[in-house]
């Protein structure tokens, strides 16, 4: 007999819950000096939420400006600083750390049955580095601003821009070190601290995803660090490795930049894929279809992702033959992603599906990621990219993956593990409403942009020819709806912290070691270190008696 989602056996809302890691010491220093990965995850969540809304304010101003063809809300220079701020904040201060540093930090030790990460003090240090770097970056972006775009193309950024380029580079450089620290911690933890019986192919896919993400973090971020340093040196000393007027080559910068920034997008999507692989089996009440293929696909994405950076440079003046190699590899990297989408779909087959808020986010993720990924194929095709590159088609493509994909998954994860992290249940009605509003608002905002791009509307334009206005207006209205959708969880999740029903250990009846301990977990995670004897996603067959 099929069972509805079992939400635990709490008594009443007023019953006090054991606060676990949230209880005990609650002074400022007990939080700012904590070694507990769960508290550090909360610290990250606060910082990341702050940056998300700052980046969102920039986006709001951009969309308001673009509702009319004339550049009448802000000056051209301010507009350029706005889209730069939006990109820098959202990529480096929000998307890259979001799932790994909040959910990865919280869940990785729990999922593998460990007490903490391998290096708890390194974990805390990574938060400080992130916050300091983030604050520095925000300061550079707000006090004067940066107008180069988050991509810092030379020679504009090195020789022509009159803005806080060096300060912003410094801020991003510092934040990058935080990524590397987290990556090292996760890799070592996954290798050395798994509970007895937890072999690699019994690991939850969320662990696999964060593992592959961490490998990319540690290998790609140093390249960005040095590239940014070189840009800073050029600007300060007026020497020209990237400036043709001084003997350099602007394409050298682009190769170095994209060598990091393409794997960076896989840093942003792999953890989201891991989240989907946790939520969907739970609310379909069955095992993931093709677990091993899913795990290998994660590794495949990570590896091939390092080989495709030149697809950002098809019209840059790069050689035609290089373009062909990068194009072919870009098509190939789509295959493991496609495998994952097919397997998520197949995981619904013969399941017993309920549509909780996390499941709505996860299904939304699958749909929007699919559209984003398929439109990536247009861009991987050389001749098509000639027309579409640097237009709104690209903007729509990457927002479908990063916002429709990663942000949806982040929200889904927050909702799914909210009971575990806080011990409270949020309002399912509000959760589902917000998920739907976000889904509709998102499509309204970004689908018209595919059309705009095909029409020829270029990126990073403060003003535009009047024939593009209809689509821009639709997009801006969608953005307003999307903003409402993003604000709602702030309210009802926050409310649930005080008034939410106690959730019990496992309100979703999910598999996974994290659900076997209390909600919220005690500081040391498990009363007795668990021993694993079953495969992952070991949901009982529905055809059998419960």
């Amino acid at each position, binding site marked *: 007999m099929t069972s509805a989602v079992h939400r635990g056996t709490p008594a009443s809302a007023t019953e006090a819950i054991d606060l676990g890691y949230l209880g005990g010491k609650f002074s400022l220093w007990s939080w700012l000096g904590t070694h507990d990965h769960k508290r550090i995850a909360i610290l990250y969540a606060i910082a990341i939420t702050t940056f998300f809304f700052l980046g969102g304010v920039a986006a709001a101003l951009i969309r308001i400006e673009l509702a009319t063809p004339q550049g009448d809300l802000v000056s051209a220079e301010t507009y350029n600083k706005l889209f730069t701020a939006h990109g820098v904040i959202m990529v480096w201060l929000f998307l890259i750390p979001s799932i790994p540093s909040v959910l990865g930090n919280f869940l990785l030790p729990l999922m593998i049955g460990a007490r903490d990460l391998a290096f708890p003090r390194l974990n805390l240090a990574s938060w400080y580095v992130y916050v300091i770097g983030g604050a520095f970056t925000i300061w550079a972006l707000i006090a004067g601003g940066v107008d180069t775009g988050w991509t810092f193309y030379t020679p504009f950024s090195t020789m022509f821009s009159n803005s806080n380029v060096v300060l912003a580079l410094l801020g991003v450089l510092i934040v990058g070190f935080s990524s590397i620290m987290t990556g090292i911690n996760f890799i070592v933890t996954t290798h050395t601290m798994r509970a007895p019986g937890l072999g690699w192919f019994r690991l939850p896919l969320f662990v696999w995803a964060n593992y592959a993400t961490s490998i990319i973090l540690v290998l*790609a971020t140093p390249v960005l660090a*040095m590239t940014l340093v070189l840009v800073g040196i050029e600007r300060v000393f007026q020497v020209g490795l990237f400036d043709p007027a001084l003997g*350099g080559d602007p394409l050298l910068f682009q190769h170095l930049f994209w060598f990091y920034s393409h794997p960076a997008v896989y840093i942003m999507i792999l953890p989201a894929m891991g989240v989907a692989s946790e939520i969907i089996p739970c609310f379909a009440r069955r095992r993931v279809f093709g677990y091993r293929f899913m795990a290998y696909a994660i590794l495949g994405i990570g590896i091939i992702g390092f080989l495709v950076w030149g697809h950002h440079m098809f019209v840059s003046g790069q050689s035609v033959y290089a373009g062909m190699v990068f194009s072919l590899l870009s098509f190939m990297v789509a295959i493991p992603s496609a495998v994952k989408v097919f397997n998520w779909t197949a995981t619904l087959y013969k399941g017993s599906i309920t549509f909780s808020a996390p499941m709505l986010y996860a299904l939304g993720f699958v749909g929007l990621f699919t559209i984003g990924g398929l439109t990536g194929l247009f861009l991987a095709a050389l001749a098509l990219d000639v027309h579409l590159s640097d237009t709104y088609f690209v903007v729509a493509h990457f927002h479908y993956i990063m916002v429709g994909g990663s942000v949806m998954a982040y929200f889904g994860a927050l909702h799914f593990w909210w009971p575990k992290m806080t011990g409270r249940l949020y309002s399912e009605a509000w959760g589902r409403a917000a998920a739907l509003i976000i889904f509709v608002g998102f499509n309204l905002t970004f689908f018209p942009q595919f059309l705009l791009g095909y029409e020829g509307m270029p990126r990073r334009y403060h003003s535009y020819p009047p024939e593009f206005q209809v689509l821009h207006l639709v997009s801006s209205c969608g953005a307003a709806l999307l903003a409402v959708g993003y604000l709602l969880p702030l309210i009802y999740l926050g409310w649930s912290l005080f008034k939410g029903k106690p959730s019990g250990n496992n309100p979703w009846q999910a598999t996974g070691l994290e659900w076997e301990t209390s909600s919220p977990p005690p500081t*040391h995670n498990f009363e007795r270190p668990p021993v694993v004897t079953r495969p992952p996603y070991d949901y009982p067959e529905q055809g059998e008696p419960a």
Partner: protein
Amino acid sequence: MSTANASAIAERGEPEHAATFALWILLATELLLFGPLFLGYVYVRTHFPDAAAAASRHTDMLLGTVNTAILLTSSLCMAVAAERARAQRSTQWWLSATALLGLAFLVIKGIEYQHEFAEHLFPDRGFAPADAISLDRLHGMQLFFLLYFAMTALHALHLAVGCVFCLGLTVRGGRQHALAVELTGLYWHFVDVVWIFLYPLLYLLGRAGG
């Protein structure tokens, strides 16, 4: 490491494994940190072969070679220290020797930099080598020196950090000493290996066959 971490790893009986593994990953990141500089070097050498050779002839071959010898000797001291630590013998002299040789390297590097500044070889607006006979020669030499300063400075920074660790270990000693010396040694040898690449690329470029 914190006590929670130590006991967790102790439960698995592999305390050394985690820290050593972490250091190897760190070394991989360092390799990729130097990567763009090596790529820039390849660019300068292929686009400005004559200028790169001319620029290289401006480096101080004597001091560079002396420094190479110093660094190799420091690695020897470090290796001896690690061996002794494994055998539970005292390492203080050897660790101090490593650190002192490292500091000597840095001092000599500083002297080289000073000479290069005086000859207007620092690649800023005042870059003016004596033999920049043409504009592209000037550009090429300036880019070579950009990479020379960037690579040697990044290397020196890493070396300085290594010296600090050596001195710290000399002072501290105590529990888990063998592991700490081993890890510091691994790091030190990496810094040495980087120099072994930098030395011929930067100092020997225009000098083969006179």
